[in-house]
């Protein structure tokens, strides 16, 4: 029962990096949220892979937790996007900078 997690972890790293780039570079809030979702799922993949490798169910449990958190995050994120969109038709995250110090 030898399981090599390396390909899964590598894939996870790639997806995570795509997500990071999406958050840093894209200005559409919906895309940003989707990128964050990517990062969550990259993490999930890594968790499940390691869980399989160490024969330890904690990773599975964590993956489910992450899915729940991701769902909550999506709900709140979309609500914020809707609220911002109501105020102005702008959908550029850089324009929403009223918290500037």
């Amino acid at each position: 029962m030898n399981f090599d997690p390396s390909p899964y972890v590598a894939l996870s790293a790639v997806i995570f990096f795509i997500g990071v780039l999406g958050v840093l570079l894209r200005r559409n809030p919906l895309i940003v949220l989707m990128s964050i979702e990517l990062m969550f799922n990259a993490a999930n993949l890594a968790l499940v892979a390691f869980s399989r490798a160490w024969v330890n169910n904690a990773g599975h449990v964590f993956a489910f937790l992450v899915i729940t958190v991701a769902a909550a995050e999506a709900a709140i994120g979309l609500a914020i996007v809707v609220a911002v969109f109501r105020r102005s038709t702008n959908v550029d995250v850089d324009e929403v900078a009223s918290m500037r110090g």
Partner: protein
Amino acid sequence: MNALLISIWLLPLVGAILLWAFGPQLNRAAGVVGTFVVFFSFGLTVVLFDVARAPGGLHVALGSWVPGFDFGLLLDPLALLWALVITGIGGLIHAYAIGYMWSDKAIARFFAYMNFFVFAMLTLVLSDNFVGLLVGWGLVGLASYFLISFWFYKPSAVAAGRKAFVINVFGDIGLMLAIFVIFAQLGSLGYASVFSKVGHLSTPTLLLVCVALFVACAAKSAQVPLHTWLPDAMEGPTPVSALIHAATMVTAGVYLIARCAPIFNASPQSQELVGIIGALTALTGAILGMAQWDIKRVLAYSTMSQIGYMIMGVGVGAYEAGVLHFWTHAFFKAQLFLGAGLVIHALHDEQDLRKMGGLRRRMPFAFLAMLLGTLAIIGFPGLSGFFSKDAVIYGVLERGHPMLFGVGVLVAGLTAYYMFRMIFIAFFGTYRGELDDAAVGVTERAGSPEPEDHAVHLPDWVMQGPVAILMIGTVGAGWFAIGGTASPWYRFFGDTFGTSAASAGVSGFPELASTILVLVIVAVGFAVAYARYGSPNAMAHAVDQLRNESRTMPPILVHAFYVDDALDALFVRPARALGTFFARFVDPHVIDGGVKDLVWLASALGLVFRVLQNGLVRTYAFTLVAGAAAILVYAAWMGSR
């Protein structure tokens, strides 16, 4: 017994609290309540008369804080005497004040303060330890401040109250210092244990304690050079002047020295010092009394002078004589002040002697009261002051102080002069109230008149009654001392005061000779006063003469020997300069400056860090990622080692 003593002590406090709480409801009934409470206390004191004279007196332990700090009440002959005067004469003055303050809106506040004063004074004299004494000592100063500034809308009254309070607090510091030294050296503060261990103190320590105690006395009892508050204190209502600034509070210094007799007995140098200061005060007060135009200020300086006698007496170790003078003085000085109050009241707040004159016929009762009081204070044979003053003057000589004896005799003559000067100007000749101020030489008013509205007046007997009762004491209070050391007065005290180390020097001078010498000098003083103000010739030119005298009064007397100015230059101005220095430099540059620098630092840091808070979500995200990357790199690096 114990409950009775505690009641004597606390009843006036209960009265004060009642009057404070329900003053508006009680309104003028407040006077009756306040007076009743004090008389009730007096009644209880009389009940305890015999108990207090038992050996050791009546002692009530109230509680203990730490060993050596036991609180309690003590009623021994000395405390009994003071308690009788405070509640008895105090009660009479309360009764008089009902009439005097009737038309004042704040009558309830007045009686609340008066009751509070009686409570404070009883705390002072009934305490069985130095801490209770200090508490009472401070509280009477506070009550005095309240009452001097009673008419707080008069700026002069407020200033006088403040001055009295500050000087009194100076005295409190002296008392505190003495208490610290006593506790550090002897480890206890109860009178009994301290006095039994006086022998353990070294001579310099004793001297320090005595001098510190005497500083307290000097401030409270208006001794040179801390006397300047007393004349100003006459800004208070006249009953206050009678009760606090003549009969009781200002004699607290006499009480303190008499109480601490065992300490002073052990330190002849300090006895010498106290005697000299007392004599100096007696002389200063008498000299300044000769130059006053305000009837209350004449009495104020005469009070100072008489307290000088008392302090001189108790200072040199003639305790019974000094305390006797306190006892008789309480009667005749209260009577003089209340008589002056009658005059001031009837003349619609005129206090200047030059605007009086001829009052003998207009108000015969006030004249009788003032004349009797004057005769008593100058020591007319048979009246109370004769016995006490004689006892003090001879007591001083008996203990080997011929110089002080000379001063005492001289001051007796001056007293006769200035008191009869007042009587002649105010009560003889013709009434000058209708004349212009300038015609009789009034250029400026020493004190401001007492504000009143004369809409309502009580019948005359309300104010005259208490004065009439005081007259009994003015005449007879000294009779207890007839018969020298075998008299009831000396037996009353027994061995309360112990024997003074310095009481050895009995001169060959007989007491009768001293008495006759004093009487001759008094007669001379009277004769001079008569020639200058009372003779038919002087009466005829009274107006011109008064104007003349006002103009030619030596400035040194007008400015009261410049003591006020000297104190001002020595203490007030340096203190004010120090305050200005701190306000101009230390506060803005050190204290405020430090705070300002902190504020500047915070805002500078803010300027730096606000750059990070640019509101761009992507920047925040980048910071996050960069941080995570940094941690990753660090972990990788650490892991590779």
